[in-house]
């Protein structure tokens, strides 16, 4: 009897406590994006807690491409490290070698001949064009537009073929030597060593190729920039204010898209950029559209720099006189360069041996990627793809 009464009372109390809630309590879902995914630029895994279409607490899991370069560098000689290092950011292979070689040369005290510096500059800018063309074309692909990719990759093949004709490799050139660039040794006889300069016609062909690159860039802009859907998907998405960008160490075109007109090529003298006339494009808002557009403009500027460099390249040797076995005296140095992905730097601690005591590689994409948890908080899932793509990172660069 008492139980029945108390059950009724319980029921009444329960009914009085029930409140009609408009929000349906739905459980959150944990979604793994990657590591095998068409859009993550490599093996990146994002663990996101998803509520409907919104993601919260996005944690990137990296390290799938960690190859231990910093440890490996400790057991290599200086010339051998070039082969390790151009595999960091494999899309723009040549650009990875340059700051390391310059660090080694500065510690050694070797003066690099002018012609070699110009060649390094030309090849670095070609690497920049290759990297930016891939980005500017594959970003619309992530949003769904498949066609720009084919046009841009066709032109990029031209640039890569030119790179291959002079260095022997499309992505891993190994063209730098401590003291300059590699002087090609022709197939002369055993008694007569023929040292060749750059392959005949390379400079003229490169200069002509730059016109085609400019026309492809115009084509890309016409195809993508006038498209309202792309603008609707990228404008106002993924805003990064400049202070946050600087605090996270975001550099390169990502930082410039947020309005900061800072380019290491203008303030640092690791290569003779100050002789050339080029603009530093900056974006207005720091959204995904600005990041795309800044890289497009930079491609134009790179093509212009290459043409100016080819017109004014001095003659001279390609390699300074350095000993056959390179031992760099004791010291420390940090050299940084404006790579296509951002600021890349090498902190070299040398103890006078054949190889470094410690080599710290500061890679651009590592810092660029570290902003993801902050910026993806509360983003819609399609926007995750749009924002992630716009940061233009490469997993080799992130993980080293």
């Amino acid at each position: 009897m008492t139980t029945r009464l108390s059950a009724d009372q319980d029921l009444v109390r329960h009914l009085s406590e029930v409140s009609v809630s408009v929000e349906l309590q739905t459980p959150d879902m944990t979604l793994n994006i990657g590591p095998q995914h068409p859009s993550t630029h490599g093996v990146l895994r994002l663990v996101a807690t998803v509520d409907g279409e919104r993601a919260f607490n996005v944690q990137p899991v990296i390290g799938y491409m960690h190859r231990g370069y910093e440890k490996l560098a400790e057991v290599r000689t200086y010339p051998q490290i070039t082969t390790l290092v151009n595999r960091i950011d494999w899309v723009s292979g040549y650009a990875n070698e340059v700051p390391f070689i310059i660090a080694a040369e500065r510690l050694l005290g070797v003066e690099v001949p002018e012609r070699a510096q110009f060649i390094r500059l030309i090849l670095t800018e070609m690497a920049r064009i290759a990297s930016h063309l891939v980005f500017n074309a594959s970003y619309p692909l992530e949003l769904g537009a498949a066609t720009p990719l084919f046009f841009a990759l066709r032109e990029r093949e031209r640039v890569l073929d030119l790179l291959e004709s002079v260095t022997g490799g499309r992505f891993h050139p190994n063209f730098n030597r401590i003291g300059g660039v590699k002087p090609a040794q022709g197939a002369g006889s055993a008694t007569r060593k023929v040292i060749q300069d750059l392959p005949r016609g390379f400079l003229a062909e490169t200069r002509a190729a730059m016109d085609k690159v400019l026309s492809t860039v115009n084509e890309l802009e016409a195809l993508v920039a006038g498209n309202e859907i792309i603008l609707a998907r990228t404008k106002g998405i993924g805003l990064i204010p400049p202070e946050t960008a600087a605090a996270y160490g975001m550099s390169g075109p990502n930082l410039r898209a947020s309005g900061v007109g800072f380019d290491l090529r203008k303030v640092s003298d690791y290569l003779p950029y100050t002789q050339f006339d080029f603009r530093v494009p900056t974006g207005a808002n720091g959204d995904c559209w600005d990041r795309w557009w800044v890289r497009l403009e930079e491609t134009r500027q790179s093509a212009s720099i290459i043409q100016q460099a080819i017109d004014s390249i001095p003659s001279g040797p390609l390699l300074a006189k350095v000993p056959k076995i390179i031992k760099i005296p004791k010291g420390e140095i940090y050299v940084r360069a404006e790579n296509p992905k951002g600021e890349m730097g090498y902190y070299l601690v040398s103890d006078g041996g054949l190889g470094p005591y410690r080599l710290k590689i500061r890679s651009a994409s590592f810092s660029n990627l570290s902003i993801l948890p902050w910026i993806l908080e509360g983003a819609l899932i399609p926007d995750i793809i749009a924002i992630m793509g716009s940061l233009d990172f490469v997993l080799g660069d992130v993980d080293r």
Partner: protein
Amino acid sequence: MNFWLELAIKLVVAAGIIPVVGMVIGFAEMKLSAKMQSRMGPYFAGGRWGWAQLIADGVKFFQKEDLIPADADRPVFKWAPALVLASTVAILVPIPFGPQVVGRNLDLGIFYALAVSSLSTIGVLMAGWSSANKYSLIGGLRAAGQLIAYELPLVLAVVGVVILAGTMSLNGIVEAQASWFSERGWQFGLPFVIVQFIGFGIFMIATLAELSRIPFDMPIAESELVMGYVTEYSGFRFLFFFLAEFANMFSLSAIAATLFLGGYWVPGLSQPQLNFVGPIVLFAKIGVLVFAMIWFRWTFPRFREDQLQAIAWKWLIPLSLANILATGLLKVVV
């Protein structure tokens, strides 16, 4: 003719037309997209033209292992592609390919066609749910939202045509277009696209959304969800979805061509002649529409889900309602 013989012929044609049309349109997509992207497309299969590529693909899909995920809901998983393909075939029933070349001349032709086309929504939801995969689920739910949202503009766009024609039978609509100016003795008729261009635009946009083609392919969203609700399907089940997409392009374009472009009718031909020439004419008109769909697919990126819904609810539906109002007024007044 004997009713049963006629029925048998029609069934055979319906069963045969879907794979053939699917392959033809699929091949067209491959070649056209290749030309737009400055590459060759299928080249080696079948001479230097690649026409056998899709046949080879079909055979390949058929001989693949039938994989069903362990956690999947088996009967639902198996029946989902069948439902999608069934709705595609069922749309073809009232479409007239010639004055007498029609599956069944239904009084409620267009009503029936639109009702049956929305069956595919159920198939998509079944596929997304039963796959036991979070990506598929997200894709399936996106698809459900999108397909339901775009059903309304699809239907409302057609109402203007029905008002003008005065009948829901598809044969009747073609007749209305053919004989629009016949009381004045003019030979040529009026394809409704000229007066109903708003309706045509809305119908085509809604068709793209119903087909989940770019710019409305959020449910599949290849770069995000791998393949959306189709992710877990392999082998001949995937072939069903694949073919269903192209066949559905054909079916819905057939409806659009019938409603807006005049169907099987061209000026200057008599009724018996139209029985033979009509299908060719209709195929040509469908071809133009399918080409436009392929063109859009490779040019545009995709809309985000909320932008997609906003377009449907905030723009297309009010626009189509205004269209109906204007059409009704003009029909009475003019």
